[in-house]
């Protein structure tokens, strides 16, 4: 099974906050020799606010840094995103690009998201089998977690 995972903006935000479920997920991925990627378009969603940028940059560093984890979105991925959006009759362009980026990693890639509903519709239009994980949907952890405010 493919051990690749894609993070959307919600998931990258969870990583930036040291969310306990995200920590648990990284532990599982690391144990299985899997890899974590972030499509370049997610950076456009997350970066730009000087107050929050440092925690996002640190989150990216925690999964290997920009060179190791960011997927550039070239013409082929953009073309596939267009097709996926059209087939699922969606206008969520960023989500379409995320699904196309996941598709480019091959079958059995999982997308980790903060909002499963939008992505699931798009994922069913992908050319390969993709999974969707919504960590937000899990029950609240019994212990306090997250970066201290």
């Amino acid at each position: 099974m493919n051990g690749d995972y894609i993070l959307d903006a919600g998931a990258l935000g969870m990583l930036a906050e040291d969310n306990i479920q995200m920590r648990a997920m990284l532990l599982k991925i690391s144990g299985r020799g899997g890899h974590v990627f972030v499509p370049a378009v997610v950076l456009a969603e997350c970066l730009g606010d000087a107050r929050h940028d440092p925690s996002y940059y640190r989150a990216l560093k925690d999964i290997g840094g920009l060179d190791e984890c960011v997927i550039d979105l070239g013409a082929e991925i953009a073309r596939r995103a267009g097709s996926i959006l059209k087939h699922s009759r969606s206008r969520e362009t960023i989500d379409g690009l995320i699904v196309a980026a996941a598709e480019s990693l091959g079958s059995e890639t999982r997308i980790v998201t903060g909002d499963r509903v939008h992505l699931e519709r798009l994922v069913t239009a992908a050319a390969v089998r993709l999974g969707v994980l919504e960590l937000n949907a899990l029950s609240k952890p019994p212990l306090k977690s997250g970066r201290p405010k």
Partner: protein
Amino acid sequence: MTLRQPKKARATVTLDEELVGRVKRRVGARGVSAYLNNALRSELQHEAMREYLERTEREYGPIPQQVLDEVQRAIDEGFDRVDRLRSRHKSLSALVKPTATQKRRPLQDIERRTKAALEKALGTQVAVDAVSDTTLVVNIIEPTKGHRTA
């Protein structure tokens, strides 16, 4: 997949002869650099993840088993919902498979015709949403229970 493409640097490294032979047999002599590049990337990412996990464990303590179990379940079930949606779409497509002539019709026409056929067959109101010319999402409107997606 296209990762960001940084500049390349030439490096002289000493490796086990047997290991180099195995890599060459797998990817060919010209693919060795790319293979090693990917292996190093992978190792660097895992190292960064291990450091992150060690730091967060020091700061917040270990992850409770309950959370680990829940996340494992979410990972294992990551495909189930999507597979169910896909198969639901597929089975409905087979049920109302458009003919060659219908394929040329606009999606709205397929929606209208399918709605009429299903309402007649089921004896209840339905709402039809054509995702593509081969995939339809049908909401069965039950008078007492409200909407049910099929």
